């Protein structure tokens, strides 16, 4: 019994992978579409300016983009890896427990159904306006259920584990679970007005428990850490498994993992103040946000450095494997955005960067370079093992890598220029001491950069379509691998 390799059950993981591809495409398609809308506003009314315009309009679509990439693409990717990595580093199979299988399946299907409801409700304009927490109270409840199911699956797998010590990835999955649970519950305290008023108006509507500055404080404590615990810690969990696994290298340093993890846990939560600099929250909270953001560079870089050093002496792998390339460049973008973020958190810099496209650039070098690439690499690693097949085409994969890299570069450089230009123009006074530019002057200068960004986004989307195609062809090809694969993923020409 003990000697026979475990048969892991990937059925839940597969469902999440399909959803990652599906929603990833939709979310990025919408992102690309709104990027073109900013460059050419007539696209807002591409289907006429009548009733349909309501649903093709930039402001309705923008939340669909952010929520579908973050909670559709990224979370699905994270859960796909959880249902894969969890079993393997704990040495238990989902198949060993009927309950776990049921939990996993429920987790996916309730999540899938809720996502559909979310899409419809956002199209209808049902939103609370809080960024990344737009959902009204019935959906908040749904999300809570989904989250608890995930928690049950973590607890279940860990409860059955044969590997006594928790691997680094698990630390990060656990932290993700706990932090998001806490953030979600506290940021969404709201009163449904239909019930409070004895049955008047829309039943889905609610009003926040917090007002004004307090609401902002809670929201950005949430918003900042939602970024931390949805776009950072679970991605660190992913790369800590897939990079050493794919390259066959041992993690460079346990101590570095340890310090980075606990450092990140402690410091991240304090930094949320950097979203409300120069606002009406107290000066000391703002200062705290700036100071902790700067300290945060090191625990963030700790993980990235650990990854890069794990590849020490392995340049030939970087050069030859697109999967490794995705992860190494992903780590590099992680370093870039976790230095860029703290720099934008310095008050004087934020005075210019805040409210501009430089922030959008920062978001996307993290989201496209770090988050996107890491998830793509993980899926490229998992699919051949789930289906016992080699990747359909390595050439296609390499092409995808370069196209998407170019896309990211165009995206963040254009937003870098746009943001700094606009930020400085807003501040400029002329020789008479009057404002040098009316607002619209600072919009029209951005036109070329909006076009470049849209081109960059389109390239990234094209790469993503190549990715889906490659995965699809891999899945539907002839089975070639007989036994469990070790290390480097086999790839066809």
């Amino acid at each position, binding site marked *: 019994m003990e000697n026979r390799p475990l048969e892991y059950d990937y059925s839940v993981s597969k469902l999440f992978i399909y959803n990652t591809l599906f929603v990833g495409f939709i979310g990025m398609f919408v992102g690309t579409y709104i990027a073109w809308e*900013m460059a050419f*506003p007539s696209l*807002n*009314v591409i289907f006429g300016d009548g009733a349909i*315009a309501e649903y093709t309009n*930039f*402001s*309705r679509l*923008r*939340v669909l983009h952010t929520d579908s990439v973050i909670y559709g693409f990224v979370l699905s990717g994270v859960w796909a890896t959880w249902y894969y990595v969890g079993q393997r580093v704990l040495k238990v199979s989902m198949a060993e427990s009927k309950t776990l299988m049921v939990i996993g399946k429920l987790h996916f299907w309730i999540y899938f159904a809720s996502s559909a409801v979310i899409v419809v409700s956002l199209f209808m*304009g*049902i*939103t609370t*306006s*809080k*960024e990344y927490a737009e959902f009204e109270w019935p959906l908040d409840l749904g999300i809570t259920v989904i989250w608890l199911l995930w928690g049950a699956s973590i607890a279940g797998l860990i409860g059955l584990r044969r590997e*006594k*010590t*928790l691997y680094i990835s698990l*630390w990060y999955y656990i*932290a993700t679970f*706990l932090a998001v649970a*806490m953030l979600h519950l506290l940021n969404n305290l709201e*009163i449904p*007005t239909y019930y*409070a*008023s*004895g049955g*008047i*108006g829309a039943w889905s509507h609610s*009003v*926040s428990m*917090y*007002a*004004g*500055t*307090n609401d902002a*404080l809670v929201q950005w404590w949430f918003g900042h850490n939602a970024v931390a615990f949805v776009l950072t810690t679970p991605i660190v969990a992913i790369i800590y498994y897939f990079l050493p696994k794919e390259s066959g290298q041992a993690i460079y340093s346990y101590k570095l993992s*340890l310090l980075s993890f*606990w450092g990140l*846990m402690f410091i991240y*939560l304090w930094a949320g*103040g950097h*979203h409300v600099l*120069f*606002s*009406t*929250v*107290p000066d000391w*909270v703002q200062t705290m946000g700036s100071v902790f953001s700067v300290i945060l560079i090191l625990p963030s870089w700790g993980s990235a450095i650990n990854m890069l050093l794990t590849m020490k002496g392995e340049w030939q792998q970087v050069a030859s494997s697109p999967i490794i390339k995705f992860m190494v460049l992903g780590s590099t973008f992680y370093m870039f955005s976790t230095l860029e973020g703290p720099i934008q958190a310095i008050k004087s810099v934020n005075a210019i960067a*805040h*409210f*501009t496209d430089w922030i959008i650039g920062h978001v996307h070098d993290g989201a496209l370079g770090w988050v996107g690439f890491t998830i793509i690499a993980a899926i490229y690693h998992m699919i051949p093992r789930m289906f016992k097949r080699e990747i359909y085409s390595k050439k296609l994969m390499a092409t995808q890598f370069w196209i998407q890299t170019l896309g990211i570069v165009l995206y963040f450089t254009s937003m870098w220029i746009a943001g700094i230009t606009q930020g400085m123009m*807003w501040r*400029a*006074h002329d020789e008479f001491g009057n*404002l040098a530019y009316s*607002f*619209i002057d600072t*919009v029209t200068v951005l036109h070329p950069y909006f076009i470049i960004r849209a081109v960059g986004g389109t390239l990234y989307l094209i790469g993503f379509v190549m990715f889906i195609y490659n995965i699809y062809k891999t899945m539907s090809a002839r089975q070639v691998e007989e036994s469990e694969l070790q290390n480097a993923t086999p790839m066809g020409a």
Partner: protein
Amino acid sequence: MFHWLEKNPFFFALAVFVTIAFAGLVEIVPNFAQQSRPLIGTTPYSTLELAGRHVYIKNSCNACHSQLIRPFKSETDRYGDYSLSGEYAYDRPFLWGSKRTGPDLMRVGNYRTTDWHENHMWDPEKVVPGTIMPAYRWMFVNNTDIDTAYAEMLTIEKFFGVPYNKPVPMKDGTTKIIKMGATLNEARMMALEEAITISHDMKNQDVIDAVALGRIPEIVALIAYMNSLK
């Protein structure tokens, strides 16, 4: 110690939770009482204004527009006085935004007018050539949801003591009363009265006719809200 935690998942999770919960307690809790008091001169939203605020949120105007004037010369020159905490006391949710694709709107009621908004929301490109703001023509057709605004007024009065029908102190020493209907029907009538006043400054015949017939298109509520931002 850490290695021990890594073998004891329950305590590991506990340690993580304590580490992350700590910051929230220190940063958020102490500020609560102090931040929520309204400034003198800050009034709750009227029925139509609140409904307009819902229209603003429904269309995610906050995706492009901030409502937070930072204390810089360049911003106070452009938008008026910098924002004060008490001014937001009745804002649930807050609408500061995080991206200024369009200008700040915190005090737009001071320097834009009903007819201007009417033209601008219908065809921004005509009013401001080169703008990337989309047109919002369906707002001239869709009806405003007054009922939900009224439900919200009842809720915030009951739970947060928002002073409807009570004198609110103003800057010049006088007081002002923001009325809330006693019944849903009264609330609807009050909203319509406000809407009629606004429609007097408007030119779109369909909107004027609609209001005359007792319907309130979303644009009217939105303009009421825009005009209230001062």
